[in-house]
């Protein structure tokens, strides 16, 4: 930490204005926040120093820039003021040394617990010596530091005084704390009445201080410092410091830079607006779009409004009227309703609203009240955009940072506003390093304003006028893949949407009669190969035209190569697959983007929301049904029930023998220990064997799987709705027949039923297209969290600082304990020393951080939440309480997890390092044990060796093993493992959080080499091991085996928390279960095939993902491939159906079988292979159009 440098400095009094102007109340009081200059007219001049300190949280702050080195030529008395306002990097770097010779400390808006504690620690040491300590709205820990003469807040929270009671009600609604501060200011006289008279003067000055502070203007701040210095700094005793009373401003109102005053009434404002001499015809036209702006009062009163003015100018220059409203507190819901809604007609005065505060509508950086915000926004019913100014970084720091936007700001100003239904987190303003003032980022302001106007126009335009482009996914670009979307029947959905829009009055021309005809129109001969001349090409665009339409064309070349390229191109032109009235560019530009997203995928939806500014509308995943039984498994079940009724009739042994042989046919021998066929089995053991087989059968039968694909706008059938209710009822509910409990349950299910059938997917789309507000809702598993329903909500994730929750911690303990027990049972009672595991974004959103909590429990720490329920700290659990050694971990975070939860990576890394440094015996603390070994081997210190939290490099996702497998573009497993190591070895370091992800492959490999087990979580029934390529992509099982010195294959486990009773299974068991319930299950594949074209692709995907598991873990049994071959290839009827419905996907299926065999994962007869080869050339010919 840099030392303080100071020198006396005299300034003419008027200069204070500008120096103080930058210290304003809320967020935007930026970096310098360290010290202040103060002087008074020639009577006294105060010396001020500015500290320059390093190690800003997540930033590489250079405080040198803000250091004040004042001169004091006249040798006047000096006052040193140190202050910290909101900006994490300064709170984080404050130390007692900064305060050593300070007179006054000022703090405000310190709402992050970790930082609050740092500030508290630093100030506490000097508190008695300091002349005054003033802390304005902040966490109670820091508020208690307040002292002004005899006035102290150290009793805050304990005293019965009504004064303190005001601070105590932290649980009160919404932005309670800060608002109660404001209330306090207003109720000043009442409060003072209750104070003992000798204290009254100091308390009065405190409240005056607060008024000055909230008043925020340079004059107020100047008088504030005069008052406090004159009253409490000993060197100034005797000098009479004159100061004026605080000037109070409107708390809420309407502001415009040209207006002669602030308005309290929207009609008055609009009247003034109409008289503007500078406004042109466009702006005065009654047809001009109107954009509401939400501003922070502090930015206005302190004059740090350049970025606000920029937005207002940009909007007006583009012909939009503005109504800029502001509020001083943290609750904007009242002003929104009061100023933006016509009280008589209840209609909004505005067509769209942009919040420039970056905050959630209610609660700012403190405690949010999303329901209240949503209520107000639903009443307003216009598109709601929340743009943000940089707060914790200067413009250059932001541009230079590989992390991008500061993680704390992402949490506060991107994630939280999303919970209100806020869209388009555009960073529209930067920060000047020297002044800390906000400035417009001109390109971003342009983008924000044009988008706000476009959204607003949706409210004004007629349906016939509106043009709508629909884009579908096709990746990898191949005809078989056109229209991919998770669990969605894409073409039927498009058809359903178009039909509905047509009914609703939109101009939809040439819509075919059926969805099949629509597919045909779109892909034009879906059976033809991709590059065939039959492709449905609407337009051929020349490279030149493309370049003129795409200003960022050069930027794309880095990744995509020079245009036209070889995809969707005939070599000269770019082929555009949309009709010519559609926008030729699918990239988003200024176009409002409405994006249907599967309700159960909040993490990817969040990326779509932030990157493509999408209003994400959720759709229901198909209802999960029990997997049921088929073929041999069904026979087995029948045999078991006959055993139950006949076991005592003497037929028992015979039936058991049949059970055993059938179970073997069904390859259950790996899951259940079966006696040899024909061996004599004593009666007692017979029951046991049958019981075990029965349990396995039940497990398969009751496994939930989504059947078929969803069609937008089609609510579930009665049967499907019941299936969903059964699943909800089964979750987390012990079996008991208590009548009252059942009644409650059924009441709850009744509510759920309403939600399940209240389909709002088409409705929400239409709302969005009409420029209305779309109600937000959490993404997730509808079974776990009925709030996900009804679908058709603008999906959001969660407050990233809220996880893991206490409930998640509870569930995590159960899973970890089971995992450890299972590992011990299979390894001679030995504890695993290290577990390598994966953290997924979606998983942690849906389960509120269960897998995150699992890691904490493995290493034996507990999360500690702060006053606002945010998890920013961990504490170790004692070894006695833990009752086992601390298990070491290697945490592989998905790229999406890294993007959404960098704070939690920070927390985990701190936890691991803390545990590594605990003074405990190494046989009880494997983290420490390994870290010590690694530190020695690598010649680094223990903290650095204790690096366990890894992910991709910033901006990069996945190990790419999935791509290699999907494209069959890999030579051997070693190559895949190298990919994994090179892409996943980027560590997060809580000691240098600003550095972002840093490659630490040595430590990564060493840590992995100690792993006894690998582990992943399955969180929902819709997405299981072979449904997506992500799970095998991140599996390091074979890699660990290669890295381990003993070459031993680690155990591989999968936790299944999809059902009431969390299960820990081996990976092999889970792969088998997955194969039995999906790929090989007629109920599943017939369901898929009923969707036709897309269904074939789904089947092929499962097989490809199975090969992926063979490649990364070797945990796929031969019979899985064999049975798959029997089902899809040997069955002539099935084969024909697949080939005819989607030949491209069928070709890939055949190819994958051949590949599985070629790579040695599947041994089968020559005959089978010959048939596959023959089929391959047949389907090739078919695709090429030969012999049709």
């Amino acid at each position: 930490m840099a030392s303080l440098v100071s020198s006396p400095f005299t300034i003419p009094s008027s200069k204070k204005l500008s120096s103080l102007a930058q210290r304003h109340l809320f967020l935007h009081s930026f970096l310098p926040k360290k010290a202040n200059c103060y002087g008074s007219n020639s009577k006294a001049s105060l010396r001020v120093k500015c500290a320059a300190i390093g190690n800003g949280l997540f930033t590489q702050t250079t405080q040198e820039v803000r250091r004040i080195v004042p001169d004091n030529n006249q040798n006047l008395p000096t006052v040193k003021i140190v202050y910290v306002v909101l900006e994490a990097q300064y709170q984080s770097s404050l130390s007692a040394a900064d305060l050593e010779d300070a007179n006054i400390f000022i703090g405000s808006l310190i709402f992050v617990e970790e930082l609050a504690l740092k500030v508290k620690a630093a100030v506490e040491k000097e508190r008695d010596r300091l002349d005054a300590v003033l802390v304005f709205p902040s966490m109670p820990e820091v508020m208690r530091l307040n002292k002004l003469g005899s006035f102290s807040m150290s009793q805050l929270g304990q005293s019965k005084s009504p004064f303190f009671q005001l601070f105590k009600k932290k649980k009160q609604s919404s932005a309670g704390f800060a608002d109660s501060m404001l209330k306090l200011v207003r109720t000043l006289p009442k409060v003072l009445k209750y104070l003992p008279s000798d204290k009254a003067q100091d308390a009065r000055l405190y409240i005056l201080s607060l008024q000055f502070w909230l008043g925020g203007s340079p004059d107020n701040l100047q008088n504030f410092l005069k008052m406090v210095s004159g009253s409490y700094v000993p060197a100034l005793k005797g000098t009479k410091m004159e100061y004026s009373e605080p000037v109070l401003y409107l708390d809420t109102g309407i502001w415009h830079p040209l207006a002669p005053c602030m308005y309290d009434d929207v009609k008055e404002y609009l009247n003034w607006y109409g008289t503007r001499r500078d406004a042109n015809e466009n702006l005065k036209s009654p047809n001009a779009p109107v954009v509401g702006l939400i501003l922070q009062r502090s930015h206005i009163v302190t004059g740090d409004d350049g970025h606000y003015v920029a937005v207002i100018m940009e909007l007006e220059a583009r012909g939009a009227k503005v109504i800029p409203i502001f509020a001083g507190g943290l609750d904007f819901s009242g002003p929104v309703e009061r100023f933006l809604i016509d009280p008589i007609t209840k209609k909004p005065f505005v067509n769209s609203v942009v919040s420039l505060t970056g905050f959630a509508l209610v609660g700012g950086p403190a405690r949010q009240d999303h329901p209240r915000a949503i209520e107000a926004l639903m009443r307003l019913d216009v598109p709601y955009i929340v743009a943000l100014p940089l707060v914790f970084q200067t413009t250059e720091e932001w541009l230079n940072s590989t992390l991008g936007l500061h993680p704390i700001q992402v949490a506060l100003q991107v994630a939280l506003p999303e919970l209100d239904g806020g869209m388009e987190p555009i960073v529209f303003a930067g920060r000047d390093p020297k002044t800390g003032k906000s400035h417009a980022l001109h390109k971003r302001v342009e983008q924000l304003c044009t988008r706000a106007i476009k959204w607003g126009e949706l409210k004004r335009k007629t349906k016939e006028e509106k043009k709508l482009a629909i884009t579908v996914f096709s990746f990898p670009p191949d005809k078989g893949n056109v229209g991919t979307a998770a669990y969605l029947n894409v073409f039927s959905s498009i058809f359903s949407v178009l039909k509905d829009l047509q009914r609703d009055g939109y101009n939809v021309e040439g819509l075919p009669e059926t969805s099949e005809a629509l597919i045909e129109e779109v892909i034009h001969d879906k059976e033809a190969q991709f590059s065939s001349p039959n492709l449905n090409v609407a337009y051929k665009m020349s490279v030149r035209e493309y370049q003129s339409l795409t200003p960022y064309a050069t930027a794309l070349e880095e990744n995509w190569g020079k245009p036209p390229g070889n995809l969707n191109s005939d070599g000269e032109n770019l082929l555009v697959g949309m009709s010519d009235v559609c926008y030729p560019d699918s990239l988003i530009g200024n176009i409002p983007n409405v994006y249907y997203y599967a309700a159960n995928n909040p993490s990817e939806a969040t990326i779509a929301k932030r990157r493509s500014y999408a209003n994400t509308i959720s759709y229901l995943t198909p209802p999960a049904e029990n997997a049921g039984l088929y073929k041999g498994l069904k026979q087995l079940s029948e045999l078991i029930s006959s055993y139950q009724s006949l076991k005592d009739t003497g037929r028992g042994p015979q039936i058991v023998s049949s059970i055993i042989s059938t179970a073997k046919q069904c390859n259950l021998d790996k899951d259940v220990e079966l006696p040899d066929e024909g061996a004599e089995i004593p009666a007692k053991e017979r029951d046991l064997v049958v019981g075990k087989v029965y349990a396995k059968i039940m497990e398969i039968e009751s496994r939930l799987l989504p059947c078929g694909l969803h069609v937008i706008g089609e609510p579930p059938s009665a049967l499907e709705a019941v299936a969903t209710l059964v699943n909800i009822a089964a979750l987390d509910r012990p079996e008991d027949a208590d009548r009252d409990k059942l009644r409650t349950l059924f009441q709850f299910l009744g509510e759920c039923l309403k939600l399940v059938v209240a389909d709002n997917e088409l409705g929400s789309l239409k709302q969005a297209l009409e420029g209305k507000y779309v109600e937000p809702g959490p993404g997730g598993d509808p079974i776990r969290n009925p709030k996900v329903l009804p679908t058709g909500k603008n999906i959001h994730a969660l407050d990233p600082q809220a996880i893991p929750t206490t409930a998640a911690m509870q569930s995590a303990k159960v899973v970890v304990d089971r995992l450890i027990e299972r590992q011990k049972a299979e390894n001679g009672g030995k504890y695993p020393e290290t577990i390598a595991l994966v953290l997924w974004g979606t998983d942690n959103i849906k389960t509120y951080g269960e897998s995150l909590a699992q890691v904490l429990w493995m290493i034996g720490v507990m999360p500690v939440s702060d006053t606002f329920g945010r998890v920013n700290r961990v504490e170790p659990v004692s070894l006695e309480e833990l009752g086992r050694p601390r298990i070491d971990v290697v945490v592989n975070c998905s790229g999406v997890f890294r993007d959404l939860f960098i704070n939690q990576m920070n927390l985990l890394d701190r936890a691991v390092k803390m545990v590594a440094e605990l003074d405990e015996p190494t046989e009880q603390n494997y983290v420490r044990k390994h870290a010590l070994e690694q530190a020695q081997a690598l010649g680094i210190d223990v903290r650095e060796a204790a690096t366990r939290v890894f992910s991709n490099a910033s901006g990069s996702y996945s190990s790419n093993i999935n791509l290699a497998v999907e494209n069959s573009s890999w030579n051997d497993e070693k190559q895949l493992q190298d990919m994994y190591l090179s892409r996943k070895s980027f560590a997060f370091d809580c000691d240098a959080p600003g550095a972002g992800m840093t490659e630490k492959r040595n430590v990564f490999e060493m840590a992995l080499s100690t792993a006894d087990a690998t582990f992943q979580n399955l969180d929902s029934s819709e997405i299981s091991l072979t449904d997506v390529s992500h799970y095998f992509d991140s599996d390091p099982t074979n890699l660990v085996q290669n890295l381990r010195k003993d070459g031993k294959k680690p155990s591989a486990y999968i936790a299944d928390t999809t059902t009431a009773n969390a299960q820990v299974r081996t990976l092999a068991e889970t792969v088998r279960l997955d194969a039995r319930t999906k790929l090989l299950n007629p109920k599943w594949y017939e369901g898929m095939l009923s969707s036709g074209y897309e269904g074939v692709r789904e089947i092929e995907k499962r097989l490809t993902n199975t090969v992926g598991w063979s490649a990364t873990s070797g945990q796929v049994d031969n019979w899985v491939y064999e049975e798959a071959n029997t089902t899809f290839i040997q069955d002539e009827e099935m084969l024909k159906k697949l080939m005819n419905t989607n030949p491209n996907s069928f070709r890939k299926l055949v190819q994958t079988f051949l590949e599985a065999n070629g790579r040695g994962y599947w041994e089968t007869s020559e005959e089978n292979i010959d048939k596959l080869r023959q089929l391959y050339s047949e389907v090739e010919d078919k695709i090429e159009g030969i012999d049709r």
Partner: protein
Amino acid sequence: MTTTNSLHCSIQHHSLSKRHHPLDTPPPTPLFLKPPTTTIHPTNISLSHTPSNSHSHITFSLSQTTTTSPSTTLSYDLLRHHLSTKNFQQADEETRRLLIVLAGEAAQKRGYVFFSEVQFIPEQDLRTIDSLWREHSDNKFGYSVQKRILNKTNGDFTKFFIKVGWMKKLDTEVEQYNYRSFPTEFVWELNDDTPEGHLPLTNALRGTQLLNNVLNHPAFDAVDDKEEQDDAVTATGLKDNSSSSKNLTQKIFKPDYSF
């Protein structure tokens, strides 16, 4: 209720409310919002002013070199003085001050010009300012010079800012630019490698609409009409320009480059 008037000293913006310091006062630290450039500062918003430093008692007459009389009492003498002494930084300050004064009383109170006020500025005044700049910079500086550059970038302000040297390239993997810091990173001299159109400065603190409206003011319509002719003019001056652009590329990595 007024709120912001006295506050408007931004680092990149001219403030009318600030006072001058005596010359011996050291420049304020960067903490101040006001640029630490001292010497001459206008006292207030009055249309004529008395430079308040030691070499102050120069009185500037309203000698009009321009043909028509624009705003009756406005004097361009200080601007002319700064320009003729190649004191470009002061000239730049003075230009912004003039612009605010020209925009009217409200702008003066506010301390900056709102884009829609530009329409009220008489053509002749803007032309006068422009011609003074061009005259003292070999046609390198001035609004009309900037307008031509903006036209060449098809109105793309990012490209424009890079061209006139108001944005700098960052040393990042991806090509990125950031605004230059005022005043230290700007060029206050007329060198060969000073980018064309570098001065006078209208910053992007409040976006680009003000500059856009200044450059698209009818005063500079001639630039559009005479684009070709102007090109010819630049072509004659091209000796300097071409060598300067060469120099620019050569010298851009010079460590002491003053941008």
